[in-house]
């Protein structure tokens, strides 16, 4: 028999959940830091120096932190894209291909729609990017809903197709007519298609040099975080998405169209993916070339897992990974360590976080079950 006078619940249940998760996150960070520290120590370097370098290079001057935010910008979009699909129990491994195709469509609009009045040009380019991402996501989404083809396999294949499609577009329709160019690239975009720099719009040019490509896409990414939160937690679609994600069977019984919900959220995921390559395209290069960044879609998976698929967590996780990327530059300057050591650290971190969250979830679940059982015992006794 449990204690007859059960303690009054001091905290609401959600606080328990959040508390356990924060504890899990801290435990995972400490664990990854310790294991990483051992690896670093094996290289005869001091872990504290290394972690200190990462921190200094990310935060010492305002331009360093601006670089971190520049790194974080595409990661927020790709993290959100992965997370919204995950909320409906689906894995969008195809963010990679979706943003490549979006870069092609955005370039097409930037080059082809330059007759538009200036204030309309950039929005048209953004719309084209969104359309590219949506179309590329629609194919695996429709196949999933119609035939049951697992989106993990099909989106990976769509990534492979996207790489070839971009190569073809760059060689044929988008290839610049400028003569005497060795590099394969598109025409340069008109200024009206470019994303304005954030520091110069805010009058911070003195502190943050033009080599930092922090643009309005960063605040827009934060807006996207809020928008995703609203959709997921304050709309009917979001409710359906979460219902389908936690139990497709119960959702169906409850009258929710599982396929329709999955299709809708996957298209939203593709739309978000459309923004991933834009900071490079519209904020840095100003044309589509061969040296576009790859792997941002896969990094988004890491960001989503680290951020617990929650928009706020994703923003934080993107900044964290942005710091690790910035720290790689620092390590090359101050230590003999291979810069790839931070990639290992990143991997360790993701693994520990995933496992720690799972343990935390089970601990919270077990505690809740115990409480319910105690309540039942009390009721039975009464």
């Amino acid at each position, binding site marked *: 028999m449990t204690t007859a006078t059960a303690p009054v619940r001091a905290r609401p249940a959600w606080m328990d959940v959040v508390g356990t998760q924060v504890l899990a996150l801290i435990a995972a960070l400490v664990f990854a830091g310790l294991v990483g520290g051992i690896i670093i120590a094996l290289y005869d370097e001091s872990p504290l120096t290394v972690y200190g370098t990462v921190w200094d290079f990310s935060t010492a001057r305002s331009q360093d932190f601006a670089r971190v935010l520049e790194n974080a910008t595409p990661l927020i979009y790709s993290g959100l894209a992965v997370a919204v699909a995950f909320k409906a129990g689906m*894995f969008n*491994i195809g963010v990679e291909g979706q943003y490549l195709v979006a870069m092609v469509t955005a370039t097409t609009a930037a080059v082809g729609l330059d007759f538009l009045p200036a204030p309309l040009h950039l929005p048209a380019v953004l719309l084209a990017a969104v359309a590219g991402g949506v179309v590329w996501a629609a*194919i695996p989404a429709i*196949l999933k809903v*119609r*035939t*049951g*083809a*697992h989106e*993990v*396999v*099909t989106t*990976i*294949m*769509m*990534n*492979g*197709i996207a790489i*070839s*499609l971009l*190569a*073809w577009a760059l*060689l*044929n329709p988008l290839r610049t007519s400028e003569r005497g160019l060795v590099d394969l690239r598109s025409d340069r975009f008109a200024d009206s298609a470019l994303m304005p720099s954030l520091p110069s719009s805010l009058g911070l040019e003195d502190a943050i040099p033009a080599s930092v490509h922090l643009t309005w896409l960063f605040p827009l990414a934060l807006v996207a975080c809020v928008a995703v939160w609203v959709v997921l937690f304050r709309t009917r679609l979001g409710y359906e998405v979460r219902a389908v994600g936690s139990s497709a069977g119960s959702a169906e019984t409850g009258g929710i169209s599982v396929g329709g919900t999955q299709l809708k959220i996957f298209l939203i995921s593709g739309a978000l993916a459309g923004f991933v390559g834009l900071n490079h395209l519209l904020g840095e290069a100003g044309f589509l070339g061969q040296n576009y960044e790859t*792997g941002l879609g*896969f*990094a988004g*998976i*890491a960001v989503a*897992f680290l951020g617990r698929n929650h928009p706020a967590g994703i923003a934080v996780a993107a900044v964290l990974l942005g710091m690790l990327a910035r720290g790689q530059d620092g390590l090359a300057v101050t230590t003999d360590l*291979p810069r*790839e*050591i931070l*990639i*290992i650290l*990143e*991997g*360790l971190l*993701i*693994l520990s976080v*995933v*496992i720690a969250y*799972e*343990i935390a979830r*089970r601990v919270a679940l077990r505690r809740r079950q115990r409480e319910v059982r105690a309540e039942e015992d009390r009721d039975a006794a009464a």
Partner: protein
Amino acid sequence: MPLLDLGAAIAIGLSYFTIIYLTGLGGLFSERSGIVNIGLEGLMVIGTVMGAWGGVRWGPVAGLLIGAVAGLLFSLVHALATVTFRVDHIVSGVVINVVAVGMARFLSTQFFGSATQSTSGVPDLGKIDVPLLSALPAGLGRAFENLSPVVLVAFALTFPVVFILRRTRFGLRLRSAGENPEATRALGVRVAPLRYAGVAISGTLAGFSGAFLSVEVNQLYQEGQTQGLGFIALAALILGNWSPTRLMLGALLFGFAQAVPLRLDDAPVLSLLPEQFIRMIPYVVTIVAIAGFVGRVHPPAAVGKAYEGAGGA
């Protein structure tokens, strides 16, 4: 179309078949035990870099073995996460893939002084001609000349795999763990060790397959050289309905789809397409095959589900 080209295309197709089939067989053991393993790609990546390193230092046999052992060790992370900690199988598999790419960059820097590739010329096992088949007329014989012995090993592996799964105590228990773990446990057999074994075999075969790619096929480690073949292996597994012999047919199909862009781009019709579109063929074939067949296959009943028995035992 000259038959000589067809012969050469078949030869290339056989190499790809070997990669897809070996990795697919690995996936088969894992999924038959109840663990989805989309980390196969990452396990192959580890196999390529470790295999090339072992090959350069101690020769091709060592390279292949080291690739296999590295795949085994790395797959234990997946087993630990999914079996012991009951993390979602796909989440863990995705993490394995992401981590493997970073790990391969790190290892490549350590081994070869470059994050993305080794110097070419990793020693291989030496090529063999298949008796009789290599004497086929009209250029078709070329398909069976200069083959890596591992290709034949892959075909031969079918027999022990079928025997293990259908006739041995281990094979039957492994399959029961993937179909109905509660019943397995009720019969007094612990589920967790079986699932660990299934994942470990998948890691061994995927690592071996990766090492085959870097040591025997390319004689070079290169970042990204697995080209999503681990996922294509998964597709072959689905297409093959989780049966070794049907998996072989799926792997042959996907293997030859891979060879088309490399050797048959001069063939009628195909030659009208731009090169980049021909390169899409293997991926398109995979998508079409998966979408067309997935409704008609039956995965192991308990695959992807955590077994909630005491301590996962």
